[in-house]
């Protein structure tokens, strides 16, 4: 089943307390060498039927209105992804996008 993936991150100038806490936990676990950790959100929208330009426009709109708050967050990407042919849904592997997805935010 085709999906659209929306990635949202806190704006670079906004402090990310959760990312900071995760960074501190990594250090405590001895997993070191990272300057900063920032935590974002990933949304997966499964689509009825084909992913058309109209569907993508709707997702772009959703990303800017509900899924993110432009005061504190950036929509960093809106990507189309196929299942890759591995999930048993009968969807063929795409030759054009061998990695299974196509970045739609240039």
């Amino acid at each position: 089943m085709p999906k659209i993936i929306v990635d949202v991150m806190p704006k670079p100038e906004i402090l990310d307390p959760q990312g900071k806490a995760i960074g501190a936990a990594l250090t405590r676990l001895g997993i070191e060498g990272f300057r900063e950790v920032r935590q974002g959100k990933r949304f997966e929208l499964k689509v009825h039927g084909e992913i058309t330009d109209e569907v993508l426009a709707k997702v772009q709109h959703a990303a800017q209105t509900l899924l993110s708050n432009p005061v504190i967050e950036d929509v960093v990407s809106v990507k189309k992804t196929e299942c890759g042919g591995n999930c048993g849904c009968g969807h063929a592997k795409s030759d054009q996008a061998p990695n299974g997805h196509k970045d739609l935010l240039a």
Partner: protein
Amino acid sequence: MTARIGVVTFPGSLDDRDALRAVRLAGAEAVPLFHADADLKDVDAVVLPGGFSYGDYLRAGAIARFAPVMDTIVDAAEGGMPVLGICNGFQVLTEVHLLPGSMIKNEHLHFVCRDQTLRVENAQTAWTTEYRQGEEIVVPLKNQDGQYVADAHTLDELEGEGRVAFRYVGWNPNGSRRDIAGITNARGNVVGLMPHPEHAVESGFGPDSVEGGRIGTDGLAFFTSAIKGLLARASS
């Protein structure tokens, strides 16, 4: 005339009953409003209460702001109706763009619950006229996503226009920019703050004060301010 002040209940609101009670104790008629009903029932002012509307899923206030009642409230607020957002209500007001900026998780990531001193920085809003400019008050504060953030330009604009309504005194409990606890819109009819004035309205149930335990009623003047303004407007 008796002023009618509505309090909206969203799924996950917690302090709607307390806000209704505060409205009654201040001398107005308290009118329950419901998120799914766009009708404001002829109220003269609206309170968006604290709590965790929609479980704070996505972002605090992000889903509640699309409730049918919010469209009507935005129109009424733009027409000058007094609107007060407390805690989660403040978060809803920023998400719906009636107030600038946003709230993110407390800097230290802990949930905070304490009696908090605030300074009234603007005693001319619809909800603060019964305070003195610069007066210090104590009301409860309890939140997880209470860190007020906005870009430097917005913060300078708020400061320059006297739109910082309340500032934390003594301790900044959540890392809010410039110790901001509450702000107002340019017109002064929409006010949002993280602390909870509705929990400091009746002796015996309020914050501790130097005169005794739980006797603080510093929050009551939010509501009496609004009522006085509404009655003055009705009689003029």
